[in-house]
């Protein structure tokens, strides 16, 4: 009593700080469950992201440059890539529509690449003629291997102006 009189503010603060054993345990349990839940979510995300995939390699050889006549567009079905040869050189254009991922088709009679799903149209160099595709078809990095074959790297997107001269 005399302590309270001497320092009532301190006594009030002590009373506010006081936490019962039950409250302490329930809070610490909830905290532990929260941490375990977050950890579990992180582990689940890791588990559901496969580390090894049996998909096609992203870098592939497209054969000897002589296989492709000048002014031609060749569709490589397995890799879903067009190898285009112009008088200026080679470039590799993705055949996957930039709209929703369908495989486009080269229409030589109309000189355009067309998507069967939603009707997007592109020039052979990937430029969009009409939508709904929002972007042009990307160009992949293309180069020559030491033994003179074309090699395409689908993880490297390059500018459309870059052409491989052979």
């Amino acid at each position, binding site marked *: 009593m005399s302590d309270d009189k001497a320092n009532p503010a301190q006594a009030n603060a002590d009373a506010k700080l*006081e*936490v*019962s054993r039950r*409250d302490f345990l*329930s*809070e610490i349990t*909830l905290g532990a469950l929260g941490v375990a839940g977050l950890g579990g979510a992180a582990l689940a*995300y890791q588990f*559901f*992201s*496969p580390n090894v*995939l*049996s*998909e096609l390699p992203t870098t592939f050889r497209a054969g000897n440059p002589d296989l492709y006549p000048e002014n031609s567009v060749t569709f490589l079905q397995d890799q879903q890539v067009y190898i285009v040869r112009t008088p200026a050189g080679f470039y590799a254009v993705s055949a996957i529509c930039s709209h*929703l*991922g*369908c495989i486009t088709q080269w229409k030589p009679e109309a000189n355009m690449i067309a998507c069967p*799903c939603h009707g997007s149209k592109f020039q052979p160099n990937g430029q969009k003629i009409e939508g709904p595709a929002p972007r042009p078809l990307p160009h992949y990095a293309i180069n020559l291997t030491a033994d003179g074959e074309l090699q395409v790297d689908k993880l490297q997107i390059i500018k459309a102006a870059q052409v491989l001269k052979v």
Partner: protein
Amino acid sequence: MATSFHTALESLRTTRVWKSIFRRGPAITNRTRSLAVIGNLFLHWLPVKVREKSLRVRAAYYLGSLSLLLFITLVVTGVLLMFYYHPATPKAYHDMKDLRFVVSNGVFLRNMHRVGAHLMVLLVFCHMFHVFYRGGYKPPHEFNWVVGVILLLLTLFLSYTGYLLPWDQLAFWAVTVGTNIISAMPVIGNKVRFVALGGHVVGENALLRFYVLHVVILPLLAFLFIAVHFSRVQKDGGLTVGSIDDDGKN
């Protein structure tokens, strides 16, 4: 002594969302404790009372019941189809063809499952429109409306995951297009698509993932939510009844 947890719980109890889910107050008296048990589907299976009004026959009241009937039909036919279906490429497509042309009565079961699935999506939408135009989303039915929206989403997810399983051209491209829509999400889109497909393209991992979701996870969730949905309708005494009936009886 109130701790931060208790304060948070108390303020949560005063929110409209909490009150629409748990209508009684805190279970601190014998009356509220009894109400807590009686009102909980998992502790008390049958409703304490059934209003006559909720049993009256109206054609549109059957939309929800028909959806349930279709769900049961889909579970039965689906389990039967599982006896002949391997979720692996390219076996899945061959199994689907076998079900149509080789397995006795397979085409009947497969079509029942297929048509039933289409019908269920249609009926669930009709049911939702009916409940909406009857004002069934208004208090005290907000919580059951939300459960219904969850059931609509579950129906659509079940329909979508089942769409891939025949592994034909339509299935492949529909899922390619659909998962590309997922990847349009800002920042996390590509990661979500990668986890959903288990790869960068729609392949055998995607088929297996969609299969597990379609035959185990989503039906279990749907079963749980259907149970809560129906028990709430019974305990509320019908779809659009207020707390007091027209005849003044509670």
